[in-house]
């Protein structure tokens, strides 16, 4: 058991686990925005056909697990990961690691996560937490989105590790074998790579539904929802966007503020005023996303649900797409050394 473990709260669980892992090895440079940027976390996708509870899916960040994988790879962190068929085996393995004083990351479902409020407990299986010890029948848990550390009974832990459905964790756990020296050069290289990959994901993925063109796609769809679906159903679609964009873990504005914070930190590493100014672009984008959420909430609750209100959302989303497009183009032209 790690008695000197320090819990740092973060906006998002995946960033939080990486950050806490790396910091526990004494690397104080690690921050949540840096983890997010190294992992090229910023994204947008509108999946019209994948229905989550009968509603289309929207994502403002890259796929679960990717940020972790990319960040660890770019800092050459040796991570071991394992999945299991049986919960007894999974529990033994976890207990064994804890006895060796390891910090263990676990993928869990939130539906049976007893310390979450009921309103947040859906069948969402890509949540991550760190187990840092065991006390009798309780696991000592550092959940990155919680203000403080918490506990989970052995039974509850087995249940959430073997939640079923989409992204079923199958007891998935992971831990750091070793973290070597990380030089400033390594970090700078990682930042360059992270930015390049993010430019690719937001500007150059073919098809209309991802990146900045995806935002444009949503804008076009939103304009037609009121006529096509009726105000009630259209409101439900808008509610889905608001929740995916602002729900706990995004740091506000659909992860745009976290990304702006990353660029600000990157500016420090490269001593680059350009990066600072592009960071401001993303702050602006984040503010606009917040404004858009307010418009959408108005339509959802019937305060402002005329077609003209939907037109306003359409225009604003198009503007956001443009701001992000310009920002990523600026990023793609930077020569960082």
């Amino acid at each position, binding site marked *: 058991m790690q008695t000197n473990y320090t819990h740092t*709260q*973060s*906006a998002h669980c995946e960033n939080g686990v990486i950050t806490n892992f790396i910091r526990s090895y004494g690397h104080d440079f690690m921050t949540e*925005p840096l983890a997010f940027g190294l992992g090229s976390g910023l994204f947008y996708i509108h999946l019209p056909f994948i229905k989550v*509870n009968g509603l289309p899916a929207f994502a403002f960040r890259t796929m679960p697990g990717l940020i972790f994988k990319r960040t660890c790879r770019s800092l050459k962190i040796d991570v071991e990961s394992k999945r299991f068929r049986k919960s007894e085996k999974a529990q033994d393995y976890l207990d064994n690691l804890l006895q060796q004083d390891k910090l263990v990351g676990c993928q869990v479902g939130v*539906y049976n996560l007893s*310390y*979450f*409020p*009921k*309103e*947040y*407990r*859906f*069948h969402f299986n890509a949540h991550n937490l760190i187990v840092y010890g065991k006390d009798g029948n309780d696991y000592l848990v550092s959940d990155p*989105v*919680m*203000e403080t550390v918490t506990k989970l009974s052995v039974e509850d832990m087995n249940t959430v590790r073997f939640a*079923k*459905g*989409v992204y*079923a964790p199958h007891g998935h756990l992971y831990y750091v074998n070793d973290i070597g020296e990380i030089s400033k050069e390594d970090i700078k290289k990682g930042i360059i790579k992270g930015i390049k990959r993010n430019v690719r994901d937001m500007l150059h993925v073919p098809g209309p539904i991802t990146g900045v063109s995806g935002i444009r796609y949503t804008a076009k769809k939103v304009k037609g929802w009121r006529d096509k679906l009726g105000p009630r159903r259209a*409101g*439900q679609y*808008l*509610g*889905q966007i*608001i*929740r995916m964009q*602002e*729900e*706990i*873990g995004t*740091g*506000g*504005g659909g992860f745009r*503020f*976290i990304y*702006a*914070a990353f660029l*600000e*930190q990157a500016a420090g590493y490269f001593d680059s005023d350009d990066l600072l100014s592009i960071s401001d672009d993303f*702050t602006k984008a*984040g*503010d606009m996303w*917040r404004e858009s*959420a*307010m418009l*959408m*909430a108005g339509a*959802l*609750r019937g305060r402002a649900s005329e077609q003209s209100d939907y037109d306003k959302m359409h225009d604003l989303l198009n503007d956001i797409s443009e701001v992000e497009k310009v920002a990523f183009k600026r990023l793609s032209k930077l020569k960082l050394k």
Partner: protein
Amino acid sequence: MKKEEIPQDKSTLENFTKEVYYVKGKEGRYETGLSKGWSVKAEAQDSAWDDIHNDLEEARLAVKNGKKSPIFYYMKKELMDEAILASYVGMMKFRVKRHFKPWVFKRLKQSALKKYASVFKISVEELKSFEG
């Protein structure tokens, strides 16, 4: 967003946690700040829950009117869909869907009923006797 603009509205996060925002501090640099909640988000969440409750009420009536089996109702109550329920009980989706039919449900074996009841965290008796 500036630090002083962080919303502190009442939300379901109360007594659970506060959430982290990335905001501009006084010096114009990024820092984190904590929020109790945001009314805009709370509205989206409330309305999603209203929909869930309406849906559940419809499911209850469907059972009452003999259109659906109790399995259908309890699935909704546990916020599941056919795919999630099927993976929890370890059956194929089409079989689970068949079990929504009241006449199929009536002939279900004890072993199948047990599986469902344990996923729904109720007794087999409760499951069988639910009338909507």
